[in-house]
């Protein structure tokens, strides 16, 4: 009897160690992604005034719209945090509801971003117009692609969690997805500040 308890303890410990290693590995991936984004930010900082007689940020950006995008993404990073915490404590319905909410907000964010992009292109401000716009689209669309990938991940994981609720490894994956999503919101803070707000100030 006590031997099996000890064995269970060892198994649990080993699982914890594997989970810790996965978390660290994923974190290191995120740090490399940060470096990718920082190179795009550096490119944008250098080229932001190279408008080639085309429209500048001041002419293009609609600030209330961008504030809306920011608050949508901020709320989604809050709801996924709630989903992670609730799932860990075993609250199935509440956790899945928060995950669904996050998914909806993520889709809303992407739709808003694509609306903005199509508007810019219709106004004659495409990525071919100027170096400023090339670096703008490269930076903001790379972030958007990350959001799209996160949504696909969320969809797959959400379906798995509905079908086999309570698996330990799923909780680990959800925690990693949560970290990824928080990271995307942190990147967006800096896009909001350096691209949009300082861009509008001129």
């Amino acid at each position: 009897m006590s031997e099996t308890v000890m064995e269970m303890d060892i198994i649990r410990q080993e699982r914890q160690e594997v989970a810790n290693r996965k978390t660290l590995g994923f974190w290191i991936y995120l740090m490399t992604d940060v470096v990718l984004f920082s190179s795009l930010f550096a490119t944008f900082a250098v080229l932001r005034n190279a408008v080639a007689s085309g429209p500048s940020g001041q002419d293009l950006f609609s600030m209330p719209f961008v504030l809306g995008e920011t608050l949508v993404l901020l709320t989604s990073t809050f709801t996924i945090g709630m989903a992670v915490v609730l799932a860990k404590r075993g609250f199935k319905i509440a956790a899945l509801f928060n995950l669904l909410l996050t998914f909806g907000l993520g889709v809303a964010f992407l739709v808003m971003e694509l609306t903005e992009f199509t508007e810019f292109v219709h106004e004659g401000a495409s990525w071919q117009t100027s170096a400023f716009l090339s670096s703008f689209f490269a930076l903001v669309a790379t972030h958007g692609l990350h959001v799209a990938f996160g949504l696909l991940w969320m969809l797959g994981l959400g379906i798995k969690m509905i079908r086999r609720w309570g698996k330990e490894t799923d909780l680990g994956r959800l925690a990693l997805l949560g970290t990824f999503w928080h990271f995307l919101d942190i990147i967006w803070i800096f896009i909001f500040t350096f691209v949009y707000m300082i861009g509008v100030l001129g």
Partner: protein
Amino acid sequence: MNERGLGNKVLSYVIGFVMSAATTVVAYILVVERIWPTDVIIFTVVGLAILQLVIQLVFFLHLGQEKGQYWTLVTFWFAILVIAILVGGSIWVMYHLNYNMMNMTPQEQAQYMAHNEGI
């Protein structure tokens, strides 16, 4: 974990969310209303962005609050160092180039090149 642990985690997320939303809205109002000189607004807004970064690292990612995060913190600070070199270095170099492209209009650049190189 017990109920109290759950309450603490939820509270941490609520605090982080409220503070992040507040910094975002304050920065937005500063930019849209433009009461202060532009330079002051830019410094304040960048400061608020860094403040929000710290808020989200502490209240959402719980960085440095759990045991055994040594390598997480090492890779984090290394990434910060790389960002500082990459972004700071790029901007510094581009501002100090001979032709100083970032502060000139295309006309000024053409004039400068014609004067110095005969192009």
